[in-house]
């Protein structure tokens, strides 16, 4: 069987600004069917710009070559395994791209009257219902634009609810294994952060938690499975404890891909959670976004959901803005609708049994990788893995090779690296999440690559330290980039910046 990669010719390409030359055009506008208006006369000379200095001028052919060439310097799920832990890089079904571009959906304006927006509203209502069923929660808002935005929405709702009871409280407990967005979100919502140290098994220490929860604590933000890929087996006791002290439980749903069809957060006491539709529900990451961060709540939080809410009256959908207890709006309009269309298409394609099978395959893949790599890499926590497994670079570090170096070497084998140095509770973490998208062959190649690298580290650690070798760009100097930031192109003869 051939290995995963072999190098090939790769085109060089300049920045668009360096390709530009005056008078080149890639566009043609239709002839105006109305009289042309003089900008300076209509807008005032002081409001009218003379030109857009140094803006590019290129032809259509140059545009397609430019972006096609740049695309070949990238890696995506379409090319192979993308094992970033906590990111759930699964296949992005292409039919989802097609349906999101359906004319009546893509060109619907958010202010068009409800009588000509019923289809868009129906899509949102269907998705809300499906996500409520999957999570075991009572109501869902699709308004937040991303996971971290969903976190903020959820925490603001917790605050609003506690305020309505008379005391918003001051702090949120966050385990030391949590995503960085959790404490950042708590801070933006006006809460202090109480850091909960995980126990020696890497999970929530129920006794330590119990000692922390007093009348100052508004909520616990918990990720389940946690960032080690381990299910918090005492989660029901954790949620019961929080509730008994008048506090709430927020669940970061980043790892929901481990649970769909098996267990539901609503059934183990979670009050509010977000779902990353660009993780569990397959909408493309697109190099960093757009995502969508649906938030699901139990009924006691429903009055605080962002406005407006979909309501059905006389067989028709409408937007209800009369929501006196709502936290308000967290973004304009109703949500990342185009992303929502894709998520619903994903759910429809799977159906209930298909979603469950996807979860099982994700678990199978993670455990298969764990089994294959355990003899070669240190596994600091031995609990059963769900959808991801986390190794440490302990053995390799003794040879001077760290997790980032192993990651860079992995690129030469044709794989995107795993998540590097996270979670923080593992020294030199290698966090690996294969998702259900991979077949046995791709997994075997990945395991083989990782095993080879472990052997390389034993035999020739210096070699690994200088990887990657086969990419068009060798190890990038990130330190220099931060020391003297160059964040935009400037014409060389433009003179010193002010």
């Amino acid at each position, binding site marked *: 069987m051939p290995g995963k990669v072999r190098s090939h010719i790769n085109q060089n390409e300049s920045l668009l*600004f360096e390709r530009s030359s005056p008078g080149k055009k*890639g566009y043609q*506008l239709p002839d105006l069917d*109305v009289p042309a208006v003089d*900008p300076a006369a209509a*807008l005032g000379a002081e409001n*009218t*710009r003379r030109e857009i200095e*140094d*803006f590019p001028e290129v032809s259509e052919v140059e545009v397609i070559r430019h972006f096609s060439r*740049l695309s*070949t*310097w*990238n890696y*995506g799920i*379409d090319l192979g395994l993308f094992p*970033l832990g906590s990111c759930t*890089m699964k296949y992005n079904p292409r*039919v989802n791209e097609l349906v999101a571009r359906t004319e*009546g959906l*893509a060109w619907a304006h*958010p202010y068009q009257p409800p009588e*000509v*927006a019923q*289809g*868009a509203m129906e*899509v949102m209502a269907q998705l809300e219902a499906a996500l409520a*069923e999957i999570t075991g929660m009572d109501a869902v808002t699709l308004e937040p*634009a*991303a996971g971290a*935005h969903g*976190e903020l929405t959820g925490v603001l709702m917790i605050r609003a609810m506690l305020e309505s009871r008379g005391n918003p409280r001051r702090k949120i407990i966050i385990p030391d294994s949590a*995503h960085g*967005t959790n404490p*950042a979100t708590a801070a933006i919502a006006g809460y202090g952060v109480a850091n909960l140290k995980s126990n020696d098994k890497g999970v929530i220490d129920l006794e330590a938690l119990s000692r922390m929860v007093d009348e100052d604590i508004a909520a616990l933000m918990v990720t389940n499975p946690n960032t080690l890929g381990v299910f918090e087996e005492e989660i*029901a006791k954790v949620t019961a404890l929080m509730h008994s002290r008048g506090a709430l439980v927020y669940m970061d749903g980043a790892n929901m891909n481990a649970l769909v*069809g*098996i267990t539901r957060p609503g059934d183990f006491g979670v009050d509010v959670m977000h779902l990353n539709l660009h993780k569990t529900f*397959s909408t493309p990451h*697109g*190099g*960093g976004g*757009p995502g969508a961060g649906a938030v699901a709540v139990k009924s006691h939080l429903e009055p605080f959901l962002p406005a407006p809410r979909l309501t059905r009256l006389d067989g028709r959908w409408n937007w209800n803005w009369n929501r006196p207890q709502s*936290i308000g709006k967290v973004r304009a309009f*109703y949500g*990342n609708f185009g992303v929502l269309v894709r998520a619903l298409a994903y759910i*429809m*394609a799977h159906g*209930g049994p*298909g979603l469950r099978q996807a979860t099982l395959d994700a678990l*199978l893949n993670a*455990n298969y990788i764990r089994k294959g790599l355990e003899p070669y890499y240190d596994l600091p926590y031995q609990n059963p893995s769900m959808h991801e497994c986390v190794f440490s670079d302990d053995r390799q570090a003794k040879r001077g090779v760290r997790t980032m170096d192993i990651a*860079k070497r992995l690129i030469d084998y044709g794989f995107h690296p795993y998540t590097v140095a996270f979670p923080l509770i593992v020294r030199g973490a290698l966090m690996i999440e294969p998702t259900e*998208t991979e*077949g046995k062959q791709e997994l075997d190649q990945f395991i083989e690559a990782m095993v080879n690298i472990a052997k390389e580290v034993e035999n020739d650690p210096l070699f690994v330290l200088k990887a990657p070798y086969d990419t068009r760009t*060798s190890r*990038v*100097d*990130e330190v220099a*980039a931060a020391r003297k930031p160059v964040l935009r192109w400037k014409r060389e003869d433009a003179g010193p910046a002010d």
Partner: protein
Amino acid sequence: MRYLPKSDTERGQMLDTLGLDSIEQLYSHLPPDLLLKRPLNLPAGKSEYEIVDYFRARGDENAVGYASFLGAGVYHHYRPVMVDVVVSRGEFLTSYTPYQAEMAQGTLMTIFEFQTMICQLTGMDVANASMYDGSTAVPEAAMMARRVTGRDKVLVARTVHPEYRMVLDTYSRYEGAPVAEIGYDSESGTLDFAALEGKLDGETAAVIIQSPNFFGCIEDWRRAAALAHAEGALLVYVFTEAVSLGLLEPPRDADIVVGELQSFAHPPSYGGPFAGIMATREKFIRQLPGRLAGETRDSNGNRAFCLTLSTREQHIRREKATSNICTNQALIALMATVFLSVYGKQGLRELAGQNLSKAHYLADGLKPRFTAPFFNEFAVRANSRSPEEVNAELLKQKIIGGLPLGRFYPELSGCLLLCATEMSKRPAMDAVKKAIA
């Protein structure tokens, strides 16, 4: 399930390797009382054809084939074919945030180009890799101004998009940061400078204005900046119609520019996903939220790009980060970059010029409610009929009229906000004029 690549034989082989008899054993350690003991109550999986058919039917329940004169923060602009050709490439579409620079130079270089174009369009020194949208960029700008000035109070013009102000309220309320609104001059439709002067003081972190404002009118950002700066406050300039940047003098006196990029190649999409921008002056770089791509070298001395200044961000700083923002809107920003490459220096200006001409044709013969110069939208009072009646009549002709302004401005309840773009055709514009006049 067709997206799952494994055969049962493969699953069996993998389970053998794990020493398991059944796939269910993978979660046998979960407490039994937490397990879902029934199938999810969802319809069975659908074929590709059924899915396409379903969404086509839902699309047909919306306004397919209608002319639209809605703007108000979301605009109908033609999308060059090249945009979808580029963003459909799996290497862009299915890639992740470019943390691993050696494997993501394509995304990183396009972000660097995007940041440059945003600087060129806004007259700022530095722009980030994008925000969720224009509305969330406003509270992010307010938070940034508070960090820069060490002050709390924010003044926002009532002519800033009403939904953007609602978002600002949501964020600010829980930070305990006061937000006060500045009214508009009821004749010109622009910022009431007397009111601004009255409320500006040494406690003010930022003055937030929008131009073209919600009524389409051009604001005097020079005067607003001079007033803000005299009190040590920052001027935040907001735009919702990015195409206006092709013609309007960039707000060079502003300290932070935020806005919505939807006009650059994203369809209205019932309100999202869009992409926001945030640009500022060099001296405020370290207070900027969100991702930044920077130029550097690789170990062979070749030009390379990477994400940089990440010590501002949540994954490093946790609760001390500049923002909790994690994702940007890379693919939408890429759409905008392709769009701007296609139009280029001359095309964007020409495109903006067509928008200006169409809107002025539409306004010609009507009586715009306000006197200030406008770009491609304007408020107008319907003669003798309510906006709703006008819109109902237009809807019968497969025309979606303007936004009734009373919804957000009770004092303008007789007015419509109308928008024309390069996609507005003369016969439909004539029908709108007839319905209103």
